[in-house]
């Protein structure tokens, strides 16, 4: 490449403009069954990174239009827990222990988070009977 191939393409320096990279748009309709009997595990198409002071879920999917998502710290906690098959109850308990919050606070957040992960294709779900789970 020749002159003018600066990263910023503006001719005004080398800092990339990071704005508008987080392109979540509207979430599709949740796809989780919502069943308390089911178990969940994170998918393999997203990678959690702590970068620039933020918990980021980077999409590794092939033709993914949304390159990354931002996670709250509690979301990151749940994502890490979802490395194994986890029931809703276990996730709620995990969050309660970690952040010392009441169940009626933790449960709706966990449910919503699972639905959001499901909507971006980052969650596997199966009936609990298939295999036991553990924290």
């Amino acid at each position, binding site marked *: *490449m*020749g*002159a*003018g*191939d*600066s*990263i910023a*393409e*503006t*001719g*005004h*320096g*080398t*800092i*990339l403009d*990071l*704005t*508008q*990279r*987080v*392109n*979540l748009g509207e*979430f599709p309709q949740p796809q989780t069954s919502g069943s308390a009997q089911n178990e969940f595990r994170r998918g393999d198409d997203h*990678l959690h*990174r702590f*970068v*620039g*002071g*933020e918990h*980021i*879920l*980077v999409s*590794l999917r*092939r*033709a*993914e*239009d949304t*390159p*990354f*998502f*931002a*996670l*709250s710290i*509690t*979301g990151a*906690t*749940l994502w890490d827990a979802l490395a194994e098959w986890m029931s809703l109850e276990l996730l709620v308990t995990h*969050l309660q222990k970690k*952040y010392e*919050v009441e169940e009626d*606070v*933790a449960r709706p*957040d*966990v449910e*919503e*988070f699972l639905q*959001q992960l499901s909507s*971006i294709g980052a969650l596997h779900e199966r009936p609990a009977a298939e295999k036991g789970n553990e924290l």
Partner: protein
Amino acid sequence: MSCELPVSDKSVVAGRMQTFAMQNRIPMQVTVEIIATCNFDCKHCYIAPGAARDDIMSLERAELLFDRLVEAGTFEVLLTGGEVLSHRDFRAIYLAARRRGLLIYINTNGYLIGERWADFFAEFRPMNLSISLYGLSDKRYEDVTGIPNAFRRIERALDLLDARQVKYSLKCPAFTLTSDEIPGMREYATARGVRFAYDSSIQPHEKGGLDSVKMQLSPDQVMALDNRMDPGLEREGEFFTSRLRPNNGRVYKCGAGKIGFHVNVRGDVSTCVTSRQSVGNIFENGYEFIWAALGNKVERRFPEGHPCGTCNFRGVCFGCPASVEALTGLPEGYVQQYCKITHQRAHQLGVHATGIPRTVVEGIPAFVRVPSSAVRRALPVL
């Protein structure tokens, strides 16, 4: 407490990351030159003319580098060259970077993009393909790149990318062989619905050749082009005035060496893609060494009495430290050519009375490093 994926304002998270990286000096953005050779023979290029056939970063080294960058906190990587698509392991290198959670940008001349590359980029979308445009006809392309029938191939490449909705932008270095077509290129890009950028700064060859510098536009030509592209410098004015502030004496005002750096094919590290002065080799010296060395470099201040040390236009100067370094050997050198362009812009925007740099009247202090006589002869007449 909320676990939800925040969606309130898309730019907020990105802005926070940028600020955090600046405050904590994290190399969020790194450019990686994976190949120095090119399938074009551009008259203005500062890299490929001096490149050896084996100036290629191997897949193994690229993977080693990406691992190190991820550890260091890098989020965005620009793969550049040379012509990256002529690297035989480009696909593997690109996918290796993506697998590590890096966001990938690509510089390319687009010539090699046929159905297969277009399909590949549709399947594994980069953040952006930044494609160099060198004219709007085969004739102009041949004049600049030495390659016949190139424009029609570029157009086909863009059509293929458009058909697959692969994101790309167009850019062109503005110099004597391209400047007259720059406005038309912007129209062309607009018609395709993509961004266009141009840059009038031309660097000398990496190994010292000055042929490219001879094709740089003169200050008057730069101003004429800027005004054609941006009548009255309306858009430039917003940027310019927003960055006017008292000079703190620091040489580097950008994020070079603070939130990013450049790695060439051999692993030599410099402040940015424009700078060719290495502070060390990331494979031989290690990341900690090169990051510390970059930190020392970008902390430099102008010595007392340096004309740039008190200039309030420092943040908008046509000559960034890397481009000044390329012509003088020092980032804190002085290129009157660039200073004049900056002052002419300031004058047109009403923030400088005469548009004539102080050094034209008072002279340049003897201790300030200026371009050699050979470089001065190569530069267009002031």
